C-alpha cells in the first residue's frame, strides 16, 4: 500500500518528464528503424553533442524567462551582436579573455535594456523583444557592414575549453550539462529562482511578501542575454569566424525546445530536465528526417507535428 502511494506520488511529480522521455525514446527508435546505419553508429550522436548546445544554452535562458511568465524573442540577435563584440574585441586587443568578457557584458546589457523597458515603462515583453530583435540585428549589421570577421585563435587553452574535447566528448556538450545543472540549482534551490517562480505564478502576492519583482525580472532578462552571448561564444569558437546572420533560424527552434520540454507559457513552473531533453529531441530531428530518406520539405511538417503532440500531451496531463 505504502509503495503504491509513493509510486503514484512519484508519477504525479515526474509525469511530464516521463512523458517527454517516452516521446524521445519513441522518436529515437523510429530513427533507428528507418535508418539503422546512421543511428546505430556513434558519430551521429557525437555530432549532436556539438551542435545541440547552441540552441540548448539559449533554451535554458528562455526556460527561466517563461517560468517568470515573460517571453524573449530578441536572443538570436543578441547572440549575433555579442558574438560580433567578441570577435572585434579579440581582433583589436588580441585577448580572448577580454573578448569573452565584452561579449557576456554586451548580452547582459541588452537583457537589462529589455528588462528595464518591460518593468519601468510597462511595455509587454513580447513587444519589447521583437523591437529589440530588429534593433540589435540592425546594429550588428551596421557595425560589421555585413561582413564576417575571422576569429582564428589557434589551438590555445580557450579554444580547447570551448570547442575542444574532453575524453572524446565535445566541450559544448559539457558546458550544456554544466549550465543545465547550474540553472536548475538557481531556479529550484536559490532564492532568486524562487522569486522568479513566484513572480510568474502570482506577481501581486510576490510583491505583498516584499519581493522586488522588477529587479527579479531585470536580472532574469540579463541572464537570458548572457546565455545568448555564451551561445555566441561557443559558435564563434566552433566556426572560427563570426558572421552577420549568426543566430538566425535559432529563434523558433529554441522556443520549440522549451515548449516540447514541458515548460508552459503561463509562468510559475518550469522543467530544466525537459528543456535539456527537448533540445536534443528538436536538434536531432532534421538529421533523422534526412537520414530516413525524406526530402527536406518534410522537416518542418514533422517539427510542427512533434511540437503539437508534445504540447498536447503536457497540457492534458497537467489538467
Amino acid at each position, binding site marked *: 500500500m505504502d509503495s503504491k502511494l509513493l509510486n503514484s506520488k512519484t508519477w504525479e511529480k515526474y509525469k511530464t518528464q516521463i512523458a517527454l522521455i517516452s516521446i524521445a525514446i519513441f522518436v529515437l527508435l523510429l530513427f533507428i528503424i528507418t535508418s539503422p546505419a546512421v543511428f546505430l553508429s556513434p558519430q551521429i550522436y557525437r555530432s549532436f553533442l556539438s551542435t545541440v548546445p547552441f540552441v540548448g544554452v539559449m533554451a535554458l535562458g528562455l526556460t527561466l524567462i517563461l517560468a517568470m511568465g515573460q517571453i524573449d524573442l530578441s536572443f538570436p540577435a543578441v547572440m549575433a551582436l555579442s558574438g560580433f563584440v567578441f570577435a572585434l574585441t579579440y581582433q583589436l586587443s588580441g585577448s580572448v579573455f577580454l573578448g569573452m568578457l565584452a561579449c557576456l557584458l554586451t548580452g547582459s546589457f541588452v537583457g537589462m535594456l529589455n528588462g528595464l523597458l518591460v518593468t519601468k515603462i510597462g511595455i509587454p515583453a513580447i513587444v519589447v523583444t521583437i523591437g529589440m530583435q530588429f534593433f540589435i540585428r540592425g546594429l550588428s549589421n551596421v557595425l560589421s557592414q555585413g561582413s564576417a570577421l575571422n576569429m582564428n585563435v589557434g589551438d590555445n587553452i580557450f579554444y580547447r575549453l570551448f570547442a575542444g574535447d574532453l575524453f572524446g566528448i565535445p566541450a559544448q556538450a559539457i558546458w550544456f550539462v554544466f549550465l543545465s545543472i547550474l540553472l536548475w*540549482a538557481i531556479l529550484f*534551490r*536559490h*532564492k*532568486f529562482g*524562487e*522569486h522568479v*517562480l*513566484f513572480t510568474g*505564478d*502570482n506577481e*501581486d*502576492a*510576490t*510583491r*505583498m*511578501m*516584499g*519581493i522586488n519583482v522588477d529587479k527579479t525580472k531585470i536580472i532574469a532578462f540579463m541572464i537570458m542575454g548572457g546565455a545568448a552571448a555564451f551561445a555566441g561564444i561557443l559558435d564563434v569558437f566552433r566556426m572560427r569566424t563570426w558572421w552577420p546572420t549568426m543566430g538566425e533560424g535559432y529563434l523558433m527552434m529554441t522556443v520549440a525546445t522549451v515548449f516540447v520540454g514541458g515548460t508552459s507559457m503561463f509562468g*510559475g*513552473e518550469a522543467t530544466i530536465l525537459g528543456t535539456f531533453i527537448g533540445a536534443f529531441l528538436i536538434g536531432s530531428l532534421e538529421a533523422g528526417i534526412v537520414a530516413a530518406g525524406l526530402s527536406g520539405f518534410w522537416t518542418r511538417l514533422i517539427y510542427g507535428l512533434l511540437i503539437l503532440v508534445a504540447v498536447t500531451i503536457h497540457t492534458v496531463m497537467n489538467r
Partner: protein
Amino acid sequence: MGGLSWPLLVLGGGKIVDKLVEMKNIHKYYGRLKALKGIDFSVGDNEIVGVLGDNGAGKSTLIKIITGLHAFREGEMYIKGEKINPRHYSVKKAHQLGIETVYQEQALAEKQALWRNIFLGRQKTNALGFIKVKEEKEETEKVMRELMGFTGIGANPDSNIKTLSGGEKQGVAIGRAMYFDADLVILDEPTMALSLQEVDKVLNFIESIKTRGKSCVYISHNISNVYPVSDRFVAMDRGKVVGRYNKDEISLDQLNEELISVTKVK
C-alpha cells in the same frame, strides 16, 4: 492591559511609546485619484481595532501603507515610535518591525509548494543565497501541526497551494503570520469566501492574538464578524475616517445604524 508588556516599545532615552502605529493626516493619491484624504489612525498596545467601511472607502489603501506596499505622500507615520520615511519604508522593513499581514487568499502563489509560500521573502539560506530546503520543510511541518491545525491528512509541506481548500489557504496565511511572531497582525477581509466553520477558526485566531498580548487590525465590511472580537472600531468612507467608537460604548445594532448614517451620501 499594561502598555509595558513589550520591552521593544521602550525606545531611545527610556521614553515609553504607547502606540504601536500612529498615523497623522495621511494622504495618498493614485495618479489623480485621491484615495486617502487626511487620515488619523492609531493602533495601541494589545488591542484589536476593527476597520469598517464599504468598498472604495480606503481601508485597503490604509493597510497597504502600514504594511509597506504603498508609500504615502503627505502626513506622518510612526511605528513603535520610529518615524517612517515613506521613501525608505517597504514590506521588508515592516516585517522587521513585526508587522504581518493576512490578505485575502490571493496572497499565496497557487502553483508553488506550501513550504515555499511560508518562507518567501524570508528564506533560510546559506551565504550564497541557496535555500536550506530541508530546514524550511521541517519548520513548515511544525507550523502546520502546531499553528495551522493541519492534522496529518492530505496536505504536507510539499503540497501545492492549489490543492488546498479556501479555509486551508487562509490557515497557511495565518500560520505564516503566527510563525514570524508579529507584534501587529493585519487581516484584510480574512473571512471572504470562507465557510461558517472556517470563519469561526479565523475569529478564534484573532482572539488568540489578544491573549498573546499582541495587536491586530481587522478589516472587513461584515460588522457581525468584526464586532465580537474588536476593542474599538474605526469607520471609513471615501478616503476619510467618519467615526470612532469604543466597544463598551456601543452595541452591535447601534454600530450598524451609526455606520449607515455616517456613510450616507450627503
